[in-house]
C-alpha cells in the first residue's frame, strides 16, 4: 500500500541547532515527493519538492530511494521555522492524488 510515515509528532530544537524532520514512504515505482508547511494562522503551502532539487528558506530534502526516505533538513533552525510540516507523495503517475503523512510539529526554542 502507498503510505507516507512521519514518525515524530513533535520535534523541539533550540535556535541555531540543526533540524531533521523524518519522512519515509512506501511506493512501488518512481515517486514524486513534497514537503508542505503550515505556519500559525496560515494556509498549508508547498515548501519544496524533490523534482526541483531546490533549497527553500534554508531547507533541503534529498530523496533516498534505497531507504525510501525524504527527510527535511536545515543546518541552523530559526524561530520562524516553527510550524507544522507534512510530507506528501503523489500516489500514482498521472492521477495527481496526493498522499499525506500525519505531520510533524516543529518548535524552535529561543
Amino acid at each position: 500500500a502507498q503510505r507516507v510515515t512521519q514518525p515524530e509528532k513533535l520535534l523541539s530544537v533550540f535556535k541555531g541547532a540543526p533540524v531533521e524532520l523524518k519522512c519515509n514512504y512506501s511506493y512501488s515505482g518512481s515517486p514524486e515527493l513534497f514537503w508542505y508547511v503550515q505556519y500559525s494562522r496560515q494556509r498549508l503551502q508547498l515548501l519544496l519538492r524533490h523534482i526541483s532539487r531546490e533549497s527553500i528558506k534554508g531547507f533541503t530534502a534529498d530523496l533516498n530511494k534505497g531507504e525510501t526516505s525524504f527527510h527535511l533538513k536545515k543546518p541552523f533552525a530559526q524561530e520562524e521555522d516553527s510550524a507544522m510540516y507534512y510530507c506528501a507523495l503523489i500516489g500514482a503517475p498521472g492521477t495527481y492524488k496526493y498522499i499525506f503523512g500525519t505531520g510533524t510539529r516543529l518548535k524552535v526554542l529561543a
Partner: protein
Amino acid sequence: EADIYQTPRYLVIGTGKKITLECSQTMGHDKMYWYQQDPGMELHLIHYSYGVNSTEKGDLSSESTVSRIRTEHFPLTLESARPSHTSQYLCASSPPGAGSNEKLFFGSGTQLSVL
C-alpha cells in the same frame, strides 16, 4: 486577486441538516480536491476533480457529494450532517500539467462541528 476561497470558515450545525461547503478558485486551475483532516491526523482525500463534469471519490470513504459544473467552483454537500462529520475540510487546487507545475494550493479550510 488569484486565490482559492473557502466559505464558511467555521460552521456549527445540528444533526440532520443539509450543508454545502463552498470552494472557488480564480487561478485557472483544472484540478480541484477536497481533503478531510482530524486533529493530529493526516489529510485524507475525499473527492477530486480533473475538470468540468469530472468528479471522483478519494481514498477515504465519505458520505458527502461534490459537483463541478464550472471550472472555478467545487462545492461539497452533506445531505444529512451527523456528529461523525465533525472535522476540518480543506479545499485545494493545482494547475494544468505535471512535473515542475505540480503543487497544491490550499484554501483556509472550513471547520465543521455537528452537534
